[in-house]
């Protein structure tokens, strides 16, 4: 007598050790669950960034614990702080040294739009020199706001056509 399969979950004895899914789903899940930030901590927002990395707000829960200060080893550049025109070319150079796939979070008012510094010395938004994925407002933003931005970035990553991009670039 054949019994119906009442099992809800994946059972290796029946289906074997193979899971069939879309490449995008796997690649995006891997990438979004381990976004290693590169802190471009330039000013006060960097202190809030450190607060997020510490135990109370704990960015490690989201897979972003490993703050790699080398652009070669990081996925996401978090521009935390005021970018002056003097510093701007260096921020761009460090962004260029990051390997694909890479994302940028503009943390705080200064990185998003120049903030309170409507002046001759401050770059009016880091999006003038690097493409930004998520903007965070605040001066400085609450640590929860940075975590919210990270979650939004993860949702954005989950929607990317990664398999196509990899196949095209190969």
């Amino acid at each position: 007598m054949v019994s119906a399969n009442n099992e809800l979950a994946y059972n290796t004895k029946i289906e074997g050790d193979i899971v069939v899914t879309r490449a995008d789903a796997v690649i995006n899940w891997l990438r979004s669950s381990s976004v290693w930030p590169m802190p471009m901590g330039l000013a006060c927002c960097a202190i809030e960034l450190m607060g997020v990395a510490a135990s109370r707000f704990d960015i490690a829960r989201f897979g972003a614990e490993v703050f790699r200060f080398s652009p070669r080893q990081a996925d996401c550049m978090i521009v935390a702080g005021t970018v002056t025109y003097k510093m701007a070319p260096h921020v761009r150079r460090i962004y260029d040294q990051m390997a694909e796939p890479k994302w940028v979070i503009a943390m705080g008012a200064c990185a998003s739009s120049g903030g309170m510094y409507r002046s001759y010395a401050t770059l009016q938004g880091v999006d003038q020199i690097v493409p930004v994925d998520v903007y965070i407002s605040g001066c400085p933003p609450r640590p929860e706001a940075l975590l919210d931005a990270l979650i939004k970035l993860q949702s954005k990553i989950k929607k990317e056509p990664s398999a196509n991009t990899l196949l095209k670039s190969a």
Partner: protein
Amino acid sequence: MTAPADVTVALQDKFPAATLRPSGDHPALNLPVAETVAALKYLRDEFAYDFLVDVTAIDNGVDASPRFTVVWHVYSTTGHGYVRIAADCANDENPVAPTVSHIWPTANWHERETYDLLGVKFENHPDLRRILMWDGYPYHPLRKDFPLAGIQTPLPDLEVADLTKASVKPAPMMGGPFVASPGEMNMTDAEPRAKDESWTERREKPASE
């Protein structure tokens, strides 16, 4: 502990060219530029004004002569008093003042800032170069003839400027720096807000009839 009045009297005795400068808060003296280093050293050694609070300069206006006045503020951590020393620079086009970085090392950066933002050169400064703006920047931003928003210049790094098509643009004033509404009004209307948002518009808006 010296009361401030004694300090100004003692300074005027030692440096007869010193005159009292009108001041709302602290005792202030005008001195000829050549005597300022000696006067500041005297203040530090004899009257225990051991803390240099600031070295800066005033641009008196494009048509004023003398145009630049260099100002030093010193503080006594034991006597808890401030003294201000001001000196006019001789030349209006190339203002020069002596450095005090051999007396207080902190003056190194203050003088670099004054050079960067106002163009006042300091003689015998160990490392006189710009501190906020980059080394080739053509203007001195805090001079009276420099507009508040800034002047369009290319970015310091030409490769990055080509790549990103970015440049140093005049910052959006959006109806003025920190525009607030006067009088008694609804708090939401009274808050400082941008009156003119044209800088952030991506597309031209049609003119309203």
